[in-house]
């Protein structure tokens, strides 16, 4: 069993985190920058000492205020946005590093490395040097390297940041595949990562865990906590129908089907809608084939030059970023009935 239990405070960082990751489940961790996400990972990896409380994996206490088990004895792998492949070793020897460190023979370690490289589709890169890889390839090799050590817990700190869209989509698929059934913590800002990779979500804000729950529940019926912490997209859940996404109330959302995870007829799917692509109107718009959804304003939150408006769309939530002028012009407040309008080309449809 490798259930992770964190109940630890780090006074200097103003963080007091309480979180349990069930054995074999992938927990997404979302929250604004500086909220304590990386601190959480560092507590589990043993790179940070709790001033109070403890970190436990299974029945083993890894850290408390007095003792901290050294990182190398924890079997906790950490993957960051920099793949940090060792520049003096080939791709193969990078991946063989953990088995070698655990005492495997060179042959056994390399055999394991080839298997892990195959698992991320990089077996052809075994002989290359680290600097000969693209960013996406390097991250895939870093995943293989992390998993080759049979870690009890895998920690991922925004592994997709800095990759181009195609490479990020590929990596997302690989992570979904390779992390299944492994106790993991994945820090991300993307709702799509949560949906694709994670079973559970923890929302962190101000150094506290604000809420945790099954990923699907939070995505389909997001709380304002959850939505407020996400950056890129808000998601509407539905079913594939005639190339569109059909919502529970029968309304259709049109968009472009994602190439890596296309929407399938009659199967559950998601529409990813960037908040800045949503415009709000008091009257239903006519004319071009746009997505227009009746919505009720739930809350307004100023965010620099824009106002993030959280909307109830049926049972689901949608975020819209609009200027404060238009909020004032329309007289928007909690409870206002509006139409949320999005161009179809700005909506991406995902299947699972």
């Amino acid at each position, binding site marked *: 069993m490798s259930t992770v239990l964190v109940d630890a405070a780090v006074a200097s960082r103003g963080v007091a985190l309480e979180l349990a990751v069930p054995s074999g489940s992938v927990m997404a961790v979302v929250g604004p920058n500086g909220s304590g996400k990386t601190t959480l990972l560092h507590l589990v990896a043993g790179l940070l000492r709790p001033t109070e409380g403890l970190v436990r994996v299974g029945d083993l206490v890894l850290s408390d205020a007095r003792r901290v088990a050294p990182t190398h004895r924890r*079997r906790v*792998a950490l993957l960051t946005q920099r793949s940090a492949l*060792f520049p*003096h070793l080939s791709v193969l020897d990078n991946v063989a590093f*953990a088995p070698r*460190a655990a005492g495997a023979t060179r042959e056994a370690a390399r055999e394991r490395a080839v298997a892990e490289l195959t698992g991320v589709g990089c077996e052809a890169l075994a002989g290359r040097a680290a600097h000969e890889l693209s960013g996406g390839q390097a991250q895939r090799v870093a995943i293989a390297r992390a998993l080759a050590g049979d870690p009890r817990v895998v920690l991922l700190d925004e592994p997709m940041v800095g990759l181009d869209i195609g490479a990020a989509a590929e990596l997302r698929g690989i992570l979904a595949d390779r992390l299944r059934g492994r106790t993991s913590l994945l820090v991300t800002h993307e709702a799509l990562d949560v949906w694709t990779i994670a079973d559970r979500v923890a929302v962190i804000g101000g150094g506290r865990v604000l809420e945790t729950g099954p990923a699907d529940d939070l995505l389909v019926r997001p709380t304002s906590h959850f939505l407020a912490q996400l950056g890129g997209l808000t998601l509407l859940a539905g079913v594939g129908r005639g190339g569109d996404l059909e919502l529970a109330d029968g309304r259709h959302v049109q968009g472009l089907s994602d190439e890596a995870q296309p929407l399938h007829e009659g199967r559950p799917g998601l529409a990813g809608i960037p908040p800045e692509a949503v415009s709000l109107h008091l009257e239903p718009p006519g004319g071009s084939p746009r997505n227009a959804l009746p919505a009720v304003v739930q809350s307004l939150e100023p965010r620099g030059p824009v106002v993030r408006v959280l909307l109830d769309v049926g049972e689901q939530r949608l975020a819209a970023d609009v200027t404060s002028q238009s909020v004032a012009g329309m007289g928007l407040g909690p409870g206002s009935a509006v139409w949320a309008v999005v161009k179809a080309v700005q909506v991406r449809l995902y299947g699972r």
Partner: protein
Amino acid sequence: MIRPPLPRWLALPAAFAAIFLAVPLVAMLVRVPWSRFPALLATSSSLDALWLSLRTCVASTAVCLVLGLPLAVVLSRSHGRLATAGRLLASLPMVLPPVVAGLALLVALGRRAWLGSRLSLLGVDLAFTTAAVVVAQTFVAMPYLVVTVEGALRSAQDDFDVVAATLGASPTTVLGRVTLPLAAPAIASGTALAFARALGEFGATLTFAGSLQGTTRTLPLEVYLVRETDTDAAIALSVVLVAIAVVLVAVTAVLGRRQQVRR
């Protein structure tokens, strides 16, 4: 990108500096009696000095590596006043006049000195032996290795050691398989520098080890000695030293470039 040009007048002092550095070497190369070159080197005192220099330099460079590498690694990870003091101490012999270094060694390790007298009770007599040459060379050369390697280790910003630890590598494994291999170019160039410094060592050796043919009279001491009686022989020996220095500088330059590429 076209960089803004340098001021033109800068070429004048720069050229002067280059000429200043080149003239003595060129003058010496011109004076080398090439026809008698092998004969000049083949005298017993020359060969003794050459052989002694090679042996002692290899030995002192080895000691520099064995003791200096650990010091460099420890210093690179240390903070606070003690570490600052350690860094200062480790680089002091670089700026110390060699004759002062030799005197310090004599005062510490000489036969009648506090430490030296206790060592000689154990049957270890250092002063005026070949071992004393190695001690003197190590004392002045080790800082070059320590400073070079420590600087490289400290400026390495990537946390490969953290990554290695999360992959289950013990501190010893991290050191052997990650930290030191990554610092290999710096270690090589630091070693070359230390070897060169040991080879050129004069003042500390003369003060602490003396000048006995075949025992403590290294190449630089031999050059100084024969210079008065046989300038040609001194020049021939000097050319050997210059050749070794050129090779070492070239090695360091190549390794330095390789290190930049890797970054």
